[in-house]
């Protein structure tokens, strides 16, 4: 059963940006990663799902209800984490969470206390005085504490330290095993990779692809920076079939799509000093999709 459905959704802003003819759906119990660089239209889509904005064309539904007109009913079953968190700044963390509970008429606070403990949040501090990461924790707790069926999470791990990021990913996986449906946006592939079943890639407001995480992984292009002992080794690699990028002294960049076997066997005959994965932008990771899109735009 489709929990979230997006049908021909179009919303254009005055500056020409927006989202155009989006079509996708998220099934029950699925974690859907919504991936795209900043400004691609991720938040615009989520605003539509939350019923904040009117669409120009098309529509979206959650649990079969129209996101704009049935927002009140939908919100009973949705946990939402905004991309830019703005609270009632004069409240403390706990006051805010209790306020949201009161707005939701939620009486049960077990999940809230459990999450406060889990994310090691000091809830007595004024929100105004909190760091970005602490605010993010408050946002996550507010989104999860009423145990909803559906989660809509906009860049959920931004601002969290690596330990808390892992903690969060664990939470998502637990919720998934409890049959919850999740859509989460991100501009970092690694974060989506560890939780999602399917991934939608968006660029310039258009959905470039919706694919199974495994097929995406196998077609991913990764760049390794290999440091070798001698310059001769570089000559050896140059002779192989591997795709070679910049060479800097005894360091060479090698791009791999799925030919890991080639890569390893070539390297095995060289003396390797070190291997690093190059941090790449999303465009570079998804060269395959973005490349096509780029050509179409020209």
């Amino acid at each position, binding site marked *: 059963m489709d929990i979230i459905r997006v049908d021909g959704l179009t919303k254009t802003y005055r500056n020409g940006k927006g989202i155009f003819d989006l079509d996708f759906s998220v099934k029950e119990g699925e974690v859907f990663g919504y991936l795209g660089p900043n400004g691609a239209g991720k938040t615009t889509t989520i*605003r539509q799902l939350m019923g904040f904005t009117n669409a120009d064309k098309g529509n979206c539904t959650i649990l079969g209800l129209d996101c704009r007109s049935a927002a009140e009913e939908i919100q009973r079953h949705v946990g*939402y984490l905004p991309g830019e968190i703005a*609270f009632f700044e*004069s409240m403390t963390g706990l006051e805010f969470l209790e306020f*949201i509970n009161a*707005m939701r008429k939620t009486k049960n606070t077990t999940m809230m206390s459990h999450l406060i403990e889990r994310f090691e949040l000091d809830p007595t501090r004024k929100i105004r005085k909190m760091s970005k990461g602490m605010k993010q924790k408050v946002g996550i707790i507010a989104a999860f504490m009423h145990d909803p069926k559906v989660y809509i999470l906009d860049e959920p791990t931004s601002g969290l330290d690596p330990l808390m990021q892992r903690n969060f990913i664990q939470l998502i996986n637990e919720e998934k095993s409890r049959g919850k449906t999740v859509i989460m946006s991100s501009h970092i592939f690694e974060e989506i990779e560890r939780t999602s079943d399917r991934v939608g890639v968006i660029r310039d407001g258009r959905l470039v692809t919706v694919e199974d995480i495994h097929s995406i992984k196998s077609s991913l292009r990764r760049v390794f920076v290999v440091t070798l002992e001698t310059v001769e080794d570089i000559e050896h690699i140059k002779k192989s079939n591997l795709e070679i990028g910049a060479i800097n002294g005894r360091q060479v960049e090698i791009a791999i799509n799925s030919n890991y076997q080639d890569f390893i066997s070539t390297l095995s005959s060289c003396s390797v000093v070190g291997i690093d994965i190059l941090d790449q932008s999303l465009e570079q990771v998804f060269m395959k999709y973005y490349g096509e899109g780029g050509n179409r735009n020209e």
Partner: protein
Amino acid sequence: MNKALFKANLKGNWLIAVIIMSVMYMYLAVMISMFDPESIEGLREMIKMLPKELVSAMGFEDLGTSLTTYLGNMYYNFIAIMFPMIYVIIASNRLVAKHVDSGSMAYLLSTPNSRLKIVATQAIYLISSVASIFLFLILAGIGTSHAMFPGELDTQGFILLNLVTLLAFLAISGIGFFFSCIFDDTKYALGFGAGVPIAFFVLNMLANAGDNISWVRFFTIFTLINPAEILAGSAFTPIAMLILLSIAALAYAGGIIVFNRRSLPL
């Protein structure tokens, strides 16, 4: 109406209402204590030394002879307009536009409460806070007058005067609320929400100041508060009240309807 949100509003905004009420009460108490049927001549002499235009602009021209007319002219032409106006400008902006601009509105709307319910709660809060200010003024005015000059205050006239002023502020707060609801940016919401009431206020002073530009009185709703006429039992007062009430109803309803329909930049 959502009780939790109403309470949160109260928690976040009570201080400025209390400050406004304290300042207003301070002026009121001073004004009442300065009333003295005998020495009112002295006050007239003092006012004569001020520029004539300034005196008329502030509505101090006719001091009247009773405590009620004296208060009507000294207080309800200027102070009872200026301070509630400051409150209304700040509060109407904070209740809607600020939440939209900062993004905290996203949290309110992510709870199972319709947009209509959220924005109507904010309207009800603004209306009841403005009403509280004037209720306080009525009680404080009657109490203080009674303590200092027992029997001097025309209680009925005084209540009517406050009622008309309250209606004017329901209209003004409605206008502020309307602008707070329709703009994405607090900059515009505050610009119009403050600009229009201030323009009304300045036009009111101009209309009082000179006969040759008294036609500007048709462009401000504050001229509908005319203490001398209200206290004299003018037949126009009920009409003025009806006009103010209609403006208030239209502005609040307009703000709520637009907010309910529009796209929010959250």
